[in-house]
């Protein structure tokens, strides 16, 4: 949350934590903090349409005019296609977008993306819900107390 306060352009959005037990390529929960939602608005500087995950980079300007470049992680191209994205069409360098997601645990300028909002108001998911791949709300086993 503190990071968001340092970024006046960023508004914190309250997310309802979902019981995401779905399998993903890797644990988003290890790298990203589901308790640190972020929303960033900025200009796309680069898109990496790659496996096992895609990324886009976003120039975000704070109140003083200082620009910082953020890296956002999301679905692989196959999943993006089925979620409504088209490579080189839906998102391009220079586009202004708003993205919601979760901040990296190390506090750097990177995060796990969820929903992208385009200038015309259209919304698409670029990444999975918070916590995907980190085991969900409960382990697969019961361990008796010692």
């Amino acid at each position: 949350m503190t990071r968001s306060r340092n970024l006046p352009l960023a508004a914190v959005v309250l997310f309802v934590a979902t019981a995401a037990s779905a399998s993903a390529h890797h644990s988003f929960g290890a790298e990203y903090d589901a308790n640190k939602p972020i929303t960033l608005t900025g200009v796309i500087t680069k898109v990496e349409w790659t496996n096992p995950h895609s990324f886009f980079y976003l120039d975000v300007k704070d109140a003083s005019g200082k620009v910082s470049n953020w890296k956002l992680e999301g679905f692989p191209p196959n999943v993006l296609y089925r979620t409504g994205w088209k490579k080189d069409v839906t998102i391009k360098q220079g586009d202004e977008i708003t993205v919601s997601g979760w901040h990296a645990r190390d506090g750097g300028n990177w995060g796990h993306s969820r929903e992208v909002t385009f200038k015309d108001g259209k919304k698409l998911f670029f990444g999975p819900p918070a916590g995907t791949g980190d085991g969900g709300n409960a382990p697969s086993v019961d361990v008796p107390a010692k």
Partner: protein
Amino acid sequence: MSPSRIVLFLAAAALPFIVEGQTAASKIPRAADGKPDLTGVWQGGSSRIGTWEAANAGGGTNATSGQISPFAVRGPQEKAPYQPWAAEKVLESFNRRGIDDPMARCLSPGVPRTTTMGLFPMQIVQTPKTIVMLFEVFHVFRVIPIGVQHPDDLEASFMGDSVGRWEGDTLVVDAIGFNDKTWLAGTGTFHSDKLHVVEKFTRMDENTIAYEVTMEDPAVLTKPWVQHSTIMLRPGTRLREYECAENNTDIGRYEKLLQDETVFRRK
């Protein structure tokens, strides 16, 4: 309640105890040899009817759209019956948020995890003598000959060796020959090379395969672990490419995280 609704209700209530002959025999697609035809593109780990897009609003991992199959499994699933020492190991993996997931290294997901993974489609190609299952995730496949024994020269592998047989309208797939490098289902659900998996695929209607999997592993489990789910037809979906190793930056990032586990551990 109309008679047809009552039939559906009873069928749903009967799960997870599907037995031969319970399907509406006249209503499921059949192959030329009379067996239920499982050919098609499917999504495991789902109970929503419809195209991929209609059934997966939300990005394929937490669908809230689409009508639910009348054969959807209801009620809680059995927890994995690990031996106490093994349960501790699974719990530790959970507490470390699955950072040791073999899939993060682009390794084949194994069985039955590949089948129940909801995010990526699978395709079944059926012939009288062989059933082939193709999975988008990491391009893994299973070639399942019908009515034969396992070879006697197996070497431990990620996807094991599968043979199939028909029991009435149910395809039963028996798989052995696994290594110990995959997870069965959820985070940390490891197994040994003694793993024996028996899966039952029963086409219940146009849209639904009822899936029952029994996992036996005397080295880590106290008894067979049985799980039920549904596999849903996804008309119009085609398998795409998922070349995991292209830009896998996770391992390097994990190594940084692992220098101080308190950063991400649950407890």
